[in-house]
């Protein structure tokens, strides 16, 4: 009892939990920590806000006060003058009039549905590749897509693409049959020969004969010359991406091969292609090839460009994947050998899953670069979106319009590239199994 006298106050119960002071939570805390943590930072914050406000006050009215309906730049200016008394506003009318051209090039207007269907099919086809949760049955769409796309975009009877696809089946079947009777290498070479003979000599005449006998799915032919805009970027970019990954993989493995010839070929190819700018390859595709080919050979320009872009990006891809292979500890290779796996099994089950995972950022980086590089085709006279923006400006109605077109083109590219980068980050997070 004595004790209680000497101590002035003893708390006998717990105080209820109190909310944190207003200055330590929510927006206020965040503002204080991030924007006004010191005098200098406060000043910087205020200056930055002023700058942002100044920029936005210029851009926002310009963007949202723009004209959407006019048939020429001068008409646009007349409307703006009438509405605001000045012309400091956007003239989006050029997009209203030309958006189809920017997206599809000179593709015939009544056939544009085909391009749209091909685009939707493309989304369906890549979904199962990108996301595991998508039903696996959709992979059949993925396999059929390249042939369907060629048929939809270029038209003609369906037999051509169908027979080319049949060539792959033939290739596979002959490989399986030959492998039973001889070695893997011989089977590969033999089936390759059979496939090539089929593609080069049988497909053409057969598809013509079938086309005239059974004109099923005979879409109007569209020539490569009229392809353009965003569409040509997607066609070239997608083909390049889809083909460069497997080719790059083979090149990367070839570069590590113990066989001198294989190694020399792969190293030579990679170093040669990487040592040459893409634009040089494009010029070669568009100009020099014509000198080498027999006169009168009409080798489709789009196809030539796709081949060159693919070669170019597969050389880069090979080096990216080689980086992934090199990053694997030697123990992984030895473990695979110790398990008694043969070369392809160890690559498929042990090495590649790890190496590719490491390489994802580099691979996606190459993809994004490749996709943006497709605008270089402008310099060989293919009308991609940038080329079209020049052509649109050359029209006397729209001569002098710049920002609106470039903003649109930039936006389209940004959406594509940003989605790719977001996907790769998501994939990296999903595949993270390490010791982090």
């Amino acid at each position: 009892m004595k004790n209680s006298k000497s101590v002035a106050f003893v708390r006998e119960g717990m105080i209820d939990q109190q909310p944190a002071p207003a200055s330590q939570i929510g927006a206020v805390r965040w503002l204080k920590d991030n924007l006004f943590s010191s005098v200098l930072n406060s000043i910087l914050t205020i200056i930055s806000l002023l700058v942002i406000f100044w920029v936005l006050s210029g851009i926002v009215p310009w963007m949202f006060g723009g004209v959407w309906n006019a048939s020429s730049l001068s008409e646009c200016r007349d409307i703006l003058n009438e509405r605001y008394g000045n012309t400091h506003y956007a003239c989006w009318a050029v997009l209203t009039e030309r958006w189809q051209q920017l997206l599809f090039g000179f593709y015939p207007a009544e056939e544009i549905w085909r391009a749209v269907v091909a685009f939707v099919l493309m989304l369906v086809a890549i979904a199962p590749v990108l996301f595991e949760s998508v039903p696996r049955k959709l992979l059949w769409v993925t396999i059929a897509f390249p042939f369907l796309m060629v048929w939809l975009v270029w038209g003609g009877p369906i037999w051509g693409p169908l027979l080319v696809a049949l060539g792959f089946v033939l290739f596979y079947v002959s490989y399986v049959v030959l492998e039973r009777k001889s070695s893997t290498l011989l089977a590969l070479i033999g089936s390759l020969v059979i496939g090539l003979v089929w593609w080069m000599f049988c497909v053409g005449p057969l598809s013509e004969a079938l086309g005239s006998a059974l004109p099923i799915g005979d879409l109007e032919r569209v020539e490569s010359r009229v392809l353009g805009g965003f569409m040509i970027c997607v066609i070239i970019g997608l083909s390049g991406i889809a083909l460069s990954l497997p080719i790059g993989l083979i090149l990367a493995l070839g570069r590590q091969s113990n066989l001198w010839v294989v190694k020399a070929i792969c190293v030579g190819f990679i170093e040669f292609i990487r040592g040459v700018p893409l634009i040089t390859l494009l010029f070669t595709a568009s100009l020099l090839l014509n000198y080498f080919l027999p006169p009168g050979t009409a080798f489709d320009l789009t196809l030539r460009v796709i081949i060159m872009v693919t070669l170019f990006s597969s050389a880069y891809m090979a080096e990216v994947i080689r980086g992934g292979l090199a990053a694997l500890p030697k123990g992984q290779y030895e473990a695979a050998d110790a398990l008694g796996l043969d070369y392809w099994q160890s690559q498929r089950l042990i090495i590649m899953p790890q190496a590719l995972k490491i390489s994802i950022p580099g691979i996606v980086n190459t993809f994004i670069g490749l996709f943006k590089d497709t605008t270089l085709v402008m310099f060989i006279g293919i009308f991609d979106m940038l080329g079209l923006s020049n052509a649109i400006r050359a029209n006397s109605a729209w001569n002098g319009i710049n920002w609106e077109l470039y903003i649109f083109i930039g936006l389209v590219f940004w959406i594509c590239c940003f989605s790719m980068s977001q996907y790769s980050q998501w994939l990296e997070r999903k595949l993270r199994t390490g010791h982090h």
Partner: protein
Amino acid sequence: MNKTAFVSALAAAGLVATGAMAQSSGSATLAAVQEHGAVKCGVNTGTPGFAAPDADGVWKGFDIDFCRAVAAAVFGDPEKVEYTPLTSATRFTALSSGEIDLLARNTTWTFSRDVDLKLDFVGVNYYDGQGFMVPKDLGVSSAKELEGATVCIETGTTTELNLADFFRINELDYEPVPVESFTEAQNQFLAGACDVYTTDASALAAARSAFETPGDYVVLPEIISKEPLGPLVRHGDSEWADIVRWSFNAMVAAEELGVTSANAAEMAENGTNSPEINRLLGREGELGAMLGLPNDFALNIITKVGNYGESFEANIGESTTIGLARGLNAQWTDGGLIYSPPFR
């Protein structure tokens, strides 16, 4: 048995040789064009007034009209043209490699292009020259007053060299502002990054027409270079060159003789008292046959495309936004340089 094989081989070789000789009497390019069903024409990727696709993807312009004229001469149908857009870097290779049959892409006729690149210029369809544009506020009325001016100039072009020459000859100083393209040049000039913008006079006019206030800018009277622009074909097929050349001459002669798209058909039907018009329109003589074309090839050009003056007015003339005066490009009878050899 061996002998028979030998003889038949000889006969086959003979047949091939005769075929080749039959070929060489006409134009190989013409035969290829006729087999293909269209003239493959190389054009600019976009120059106001000269070549540009419209909203439906249909090509229009002064150079385009020339492609259409050749198609009208060969097929009687001006729509049978396949346009291949070419950049300045790809144009000559495309022509020499045979990817196109004809290049109509405002290309300046120079010695080295004609001789060294082995190309044939078939004529001059537009006499251009390098000019200067300045803002009115600058208060300059002659290029010789441009002492110390900043000049927007496209790098790597002949205009850059001409500019240096002009200022050196006149002992003036200038400060170049290098730009990459026509578009960039316009924007820099409008933003006031340079006092003067120099390029071909036709391009200056096109640029000025697109400005918000064209009246605030003037094109100075000096023209400091010769830029004869014309269509061209490759060496080695003079018959084809003749077809292209006389398709152009037909447009020029038609204007000189007063034959227009409106009255040509009637003149051809009823005849005129001018023998040259009659020959041009195929009523008299066998001029078309000499080219390996139908005799009414010029009539087709004039009715379906128009004469030189009509094409000029419709695409780049004073009634269009580009608003070029005929100037040097007037008929020789009006004091210009446009002149066709006689149709005889």
